[in-house]
């Protein structure tokens, strides 16, 4: 496919070309190509299209880019591959097709990785998200020793066993782009595939943001407000779950507000991540905050299973 593309659209020439190629590949397979969730999340897994859709019996296929925020990973734009904001490309297939590994390898071929030239390996890496009450088994996928993707068969989400099992692929887009473009510093990535004056780098787009957000995350984010935000989100989440209970006497006995409640769980999680980056959460408190977010995730998961998309008729 890449041979017929104009140079600037090629996955090995531009960051956006890589994203577009992956989107085409998975769209072609039948995935719904979603847009990023419009909230701050730590990973693509937090998107309700993964977390909630992985629960319940209904088949689901989706792919999307998700900007991911990890406040603690900020390095003021000084580290060549660590950032507080980066992109993940997420694919979720429920149930996982039996040839998911082959599909994944095909997607690598699509972005120009020659599998006769490079050494692709599936190396054990079990995934666990304590805040989501989720775990799965799978691998980190190596290309010539570089971890370029995470491959997981979900076993449990929000404390519920997954059946059928979803297969989740998470591509680290910057890493992969650095690999295919042959670049050693993320900020040198060609973003738009043009050369000369028209060339836009990843640094042009994001370096200032990394500097500013690192300042914010580590130094200036108001911790009082954040603590309050955490408590508010927690309270609102439980309130929405309560108010979303089926109405008494109604024929429809499904939950009515699982999604809005889950948004509050996301908000609480991000407030916690920021507080953690600000260094105001002690070691013991840390565990208790993680447990509190997990309680929200579990309650939202339970509510989701009582909705139509969660499989309740």
């Amino acid at each position, binding site marked *: 496919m890449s041979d017929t593309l104009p140079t600037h659209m090629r996955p090995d020439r531009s960051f956006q070309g890589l994203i577009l190629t992956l989107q085409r590949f998975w769209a072609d397979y039948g995935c719904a190509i979603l847009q990023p969730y419009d909230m701050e999340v730590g990973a693509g897994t937090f998107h309700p299209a993964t977390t909630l859709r992985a629960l319940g019996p209904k088949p689901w296929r989706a792919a999307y880019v998700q900007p991911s925020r990890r406040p603690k990973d900020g390095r003021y734009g000084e580290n060549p591959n660590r950032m507080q904001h980066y992109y993940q490309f997420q694919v979720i297939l429920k149930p*996982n097709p039996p040839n998911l590994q082959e599909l994944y390898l095909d997607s690598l071929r699509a972005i120009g990785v020659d599998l006769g030239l*490079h050494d692709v390996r599936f190396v054990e890496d079990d995934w666990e998200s304590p805040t989501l009450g989720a775990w799965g088994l799978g*691998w980190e996928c190596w290309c*010539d020793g570089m971890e370029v993707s995470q491959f997981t*068969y979900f076993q449990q989400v929000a404390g519920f066993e997954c059946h*059928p099992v979803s297969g989740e692929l998470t591509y680290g887009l910057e890493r992969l782009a650095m690999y295919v473009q042959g670049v050693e510093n993320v900020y040198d990535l060609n973003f738009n595939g043009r050369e000369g004056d028209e060339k836009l780098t990843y640094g042009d787009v994001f370096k200032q943001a990394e500097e500013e957000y690192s300042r914010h995350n580590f130094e200036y984010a108001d911790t009082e407000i954040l603590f309050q935000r955490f408590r508010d989100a927690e309270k609102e989440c439980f309130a929405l779950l309560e108010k979303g209970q089926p109405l008494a006497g109604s024929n429809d006995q499904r939950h009515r507000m699982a999604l809005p409640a889950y948004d509050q769980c996301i908000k609480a999680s991000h407030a916690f991540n920021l507080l953690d980056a600000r260094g105001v959460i002690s070691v013991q408190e840390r565990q208790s905050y993680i447990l509190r977010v997990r309680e929200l995730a579990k309650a939202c998961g339970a509510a989701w299973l009582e909705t139509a998309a969660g499989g309740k008729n």
Partner: protein
Amino acid sequence: MPDLLLELFSEEIPARMQRKAAEDLKKLVTDAIVEAGLHYEGAKAFSTPRRLALTVTGVPTHSAATREERKGPKVGAPDAAIQGFLRGAGLASIDQAHVHYDPKKGDFYVAHIEKPGRDTKDVIAEAIPAIIRSFPWPKSMHWGTGRLNWVRPLHTILCTFGPETEEPEVIDFEIEGIRSGNTTRGHRFMAPDVFTVKRFDDYADKLEKAKVVLDADRRKDIILHDARDSVFALGLELVEDEGLLEEVAGLVEWPVVLVGSFEEEFLKIPPEVIRATIRANQKCFVVRKPGTNELANRFVLVSNIEASDGGKAISAGNSRVIRARLSDAKFFYETDLRAPLESRLPKFKDIIFHEKLGTQAERIERIEKLAAEIAPLVGADVDKAKRAARLAKMDLVTEVVGEFPEVQGLMGKYYALAQGEDASVATAIEDHYKPQGPADRVPADPVAIAVALADKLDTMVGFWAIDEKPTGSKDPFALRRAALGIIRIILSVPVTLRLGAAILKALDGFFDKDEAAALARFEEKQLAVSAQDVDGEQDLDNALEAYGHEFRRNLRTRSSALIADLLAFFADRLKVQLREQGARHDLVDAVYALGDQDDLLLIVRRVEALGTFLDTEDGQNLLAGYRRAANILKAEEKKGESFEGEIDAAQLVLPEEQALFVATRFARADAESAVGREDFEGAMAALARLRAPVDAFFDKVLVNAEDPAVRINRLRLLASIRTATLAVADFSKVGG
């Protein structure tokens, strides 16, 4: 006879699980074969990242029919007994049982249970699905819509059975939609097509052609030899690493060894950090200059394919990743170097060592005090010991150790040397964790010894105080290892240390310095809790803190019992240790039975001297004499008499009893004074002098004399033999 071939083909199996899984498969299948009344000549299991394979040779095609007779109750026994018998024997009614006669029992029922022979194929077809369903993976999963559990999705099962000369048959079975067959696939990238397999040699052969080396040991061999050769060609030497080799052999089906490189400047990073970086993250081997410990700027990687460019791209890619990793490591190392070690101390106030034992900062303070107490006993400079104890844990919060926990201690040493600490202090930082296991070395520098003992004693005493002792197989805080570490240090350095006193000193560290103030704070918090003006987490904190204070208050009252218990634990560990070294544990018991034994070194030396003595003729005879005396005394003491009183010299009639009287007094005094000088050989020699008079006494003297005064006196004489031996050991515990 026919052979069985089985292959379970799946997605990538974690490297660390492969070997055991192959062995488990072998055991489960051969057990099932034997269980079914069959036998086999040989079995061998194999594993690659994508398959477990098993060949079982020489299995008969059928199992023989068997007949078993099972005895039942008497004819006319109660119905319940009859029914039980029928159930057990699998009979429908009593008419199916035979009646046998026995002169003792009379007529009774016997079931003749006949099992027809079975087709081996049926046995296997039944056994394998059951084995797969309950396979002992350490972690397993579901996939798709199925309910099967396997380590990763299972794709195909190959299972053939048949004699060497004929076309083998597929043993037909199905599990969760996977139907057994006679096909498999080769290498994921180089030979992905399906092919048909007959028997094992054909299987291994075709796999080899399809770029799969089936045998993990052969893959290891290939990797090791190719790695040695390729770095030798560069004038370098491979740093061999069995653990890594085993893992890497589980990551490839077709090993291709390549060499990569990184910039010379990274060699400024400590070699252990370079190795940890390259090993842990990238699963590559480091390389050194021949005959030195100096690393070279090369590494060996093992790829899974023969690449179309001969591996240039793969090697370049890996080098790039390793360069990035090393530049992270270098950054971490340089960042760490910028701040003095002790500047990290405040961080330890926020790190909980154990919720009931306070913070790491408190622990460091305790270890520092204890190391200062121990230092003079082991010939260490007190100030250096204190300094080392204070710095020993600092590297735990450095960037490098955060990234690679396995270099803890070692990094502390590097940083200490870099900031100009005394060499002994730096060594102590690295060595205070030692010895970690039976193969680990024992610290040699006195400062390191003081800190190592203090660190381990603090751990043991702390967990004893909160009653978290090891039980059975559970020892989450590795307290047995700590005890063994202390024992090994004391015995091999050697160190003269009264453990009881040392434990008491260690306990001191756990007492609250200001209990009254703490108590007041506790009560204040109790009030706050009962007024419910704090939130849930604080309640928990308060409860824990309250527990802490209570624990400290109770500790004082529990001290002596705790020390006794800990000493008994040390005694047990010492026994285990001595037994492993071939010493007689009854002798250890004989020494411990004296009571108040807490100097491990003296205990061991006494045990050794006792063992040597008891191996001599004098020792054997004295032991026999002792036993004779002890038996007579025991019999008499049962009647309620005691013979501990003074011997009346005037009542000693025969020369042999007079001689024994004098000998026991001298032997006892000499033995005690020798023990006082810690001269156990001398003490044994003193006892040896008792042998002749004891023998002569038993030879010539009748203990049960008619004159009650003479009799009592002679029994007292026997008691004095026992007392004299107690100067050295409790001979009643000596076995054999």
